[in-house]
């Protein structure tokens, strides 16, 4: 068995980033954020993007999600062009859902209301059906009992899980995670990693996951793309040959340590560059 292949051979959610360039403020002091970046995210895999803070990896995510324009190049999902030089901005939609760094559950809606938001506003499910599905999915994620609480009333770890459930309710092709566990303490983080894998094994969705934490990247990903700091492009793509399903035992395994050693230098080098350039967080 080819261990670097995704756990389930999925046919949806392949993303091709082709020669993408992003220049901020093309008229004034042009800042090259992404420089001729080419990367393939296979359908159904967990692709981890690692780079120091402010290296421009979020720019890539924003381009896929449709929050920002690209300057040139092309991003294609399952054969369909999302954005290109001619049409620089894709339209955000429920096939690509972002889980935000600081969380974006609506604090004025209960957890259940948040979860059913997507299908209901799209008119895909009647409210009642959506409620049934939402309850069932929350229960599957070990979250029954918090349906009627507001997000502000549950722990931050739970909020992240609810947010992922909210995304999965729409049956997306790809989940775009933007350092979702950055604000969590390390103990909660370890629980969240296993919970994410469990959700992944059950839902087989492509995951594009941005992080600056190498251990997190290798623990979760099928592949890890280490990005250069501004301008951003892949410096090294690592195939993580540790079989899925994984659990926390992996962290102490020999192979895991070897992979960390193999890549640590590359990551450190970029971190140093970013530090010297004095990039702002973001």
């Amino acid at each position: 068995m080819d261990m670097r292949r995704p756990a389930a051979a999925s046919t949806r959610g392949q993303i091709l980033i082709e020669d993408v360039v992003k220049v901020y403020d093309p008229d004034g002091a042009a800042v090259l954020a992404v420089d001729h970046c080419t990367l393939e995210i296979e359908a159904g895999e967990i692709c981890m993007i690692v780079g120091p803070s402010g290296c421009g990896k979020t720019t890539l995510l924003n381009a896929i999600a449709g929050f920002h324009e690209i300057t040139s190049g092309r991003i294609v999902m399952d054969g369909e062009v999302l954005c290109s030089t001619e049409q620089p901005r894709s339209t955000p939609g429920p096939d690509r859902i972002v889980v935000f760094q600081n969380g974006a559950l609506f604090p004025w809606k209960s957890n259940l209301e948040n979860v059913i938001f997507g299908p209901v506003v799209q008119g895909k499910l009647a409210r009642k059906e959506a409620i049934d599905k939402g309850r069932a999915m929350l229960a599957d994620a070990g979250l029954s009992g918090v349906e009627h609480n507001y997000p502000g009333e549950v722990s931050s770890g739970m909020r992240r899980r609810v947010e992922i459930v909210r995304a999965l309710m729409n049956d997306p092709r790809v989940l775009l995670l933007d350092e979702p566990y950055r604000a969590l303490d390390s103990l909660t983080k370890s629980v969240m990693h296993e919970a994410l894998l469990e959700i992944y094994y059950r839902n087989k969705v492509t995951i594009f996951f941005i992080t600056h934490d190498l251990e997190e990247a290798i623990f979760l990903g099928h592949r890890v793309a280490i990005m250069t700091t501004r301008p951003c492009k892949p410096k090294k793509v690592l195939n993580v040959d540790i079989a899925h399903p994984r659990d926390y035992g992996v962290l102490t395994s020999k192979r895991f340590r070897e992979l960390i050693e193999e890549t640590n230098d590359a990551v450190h080098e970029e971190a140093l560059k970013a530090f010297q350039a004095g990039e702002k967080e973001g």
Partner: protein
Amino acid sequence: MEAALRAGAADDAVAVLRDTTPFGDGSEALLQRVAAIARPARYDAGERIYSAGDAADDIYVVVSGRAEHVFMPEVGAREANKRVPRGGVFGWAGLLLGQTQRLATVTASEPTEVLRIDTEALVELLESEPLEGGHVMERFAGMIQRDFTLPTLLAQVRRLSGPLTEEMSSLSLTMYRLSLWLKSPRPYLMVIGFALFLGFWYFAVEIWKLPRFREMPGITGVVKEWFSPSPTYGLSLYSAEYYQHIAMSVWRVTQAFVLATVLGVPVGLLLGWSRKFKEYVFPVFETLRPIPILAWVPLAIVMFIATESAVVYLAFLASFFATALNTMLGVESIDESYVRAANCLGADEWQVFRHVIIPGALPFIFTGLQISIGVSWFSLVAAEMVSGQYGLGYVIWTSYVMVRYPTIVIGMVTLGLVGYTTSALVRIAGDYLMEWRVRELALTER
């Protein structure tokens, strides 16, 4: 179909109970005891678990699988059909006041394992632990009213040992908060603050007779006049005229405030939402806003022939600016991520407006309304002093002209009290509309 609970299975039962709303945060000891009276049962797909009208004996907790729960139409449940997954609880009709029969028909929609708990045994168990048991019953009441959306009247859960229905629990919460407040130093500081202020007034005017205070009405004079059935200057708690003045002012402020809210909130939402609208309107808005209300008085009198509408207009004007400006700031303060998330989830522009912009701006809107009601009183009194008949501002001004000094103070104190009441009402309305915020703030103990 049923078997006694094996020793190892007891832990599993506790784990399932942990997943339920009513028992979820119970102590390990309590859950062990509940697990001990629970009996496992399994049903095949399509098998009837019970029918509406059967005797309501056991409560069911779903361990695995799924059950189709259909209320009988007479119940008037808002959500008649629902599927109950693991951790779901049904068959609680026996817990309702005066209810001995099943209200719903339940069928296993796939092979389903459940725990059956005898209602009477459970109630007995909960009664033996009044504190925790009461809490569990409260959670049951909450669950029944929310998850099963029964009419509140029907969903009166039996009482164990004390008040346990939803309203009662919120009353006891209020009492609890009140007792906390009384135990904290805050009320005493408040009393001391008032005592110092009133004491200074008393001493300055009546004992020391300080030069600046020589003409001032003394506190004893004011209080005597205010509570007198036959006041020297005609205005006290006992005179009908006093209430006429209050009613007049309240009515004017109400008109101004309602008008300012109805116009100010939409204008503010638009200002924050549409860049173009803001570019048209905001410069004019910012030029007019700093003009003091008193400067508008002559123009208002010219504009409105009737004094009454001129007075309301002046009170409205100040409120309107406060409301619109705060609403705009509220929209601008909304985290971009919420809008992006809504876009990702497929919301169109109008849905974003309705589900993100309006609720997101609500905290600021209510801050604006608090300010708005305050400035509305402020400009009303100014306007009443200049023109108009009746009203508290009018009382204060005419009392000055007619040298009825104690009545001035009566008017002022009344204004303070009425003004405080109206802004408290606005705050209560805000808390009611923003339950999420109240709950969040309660958790952070701010």
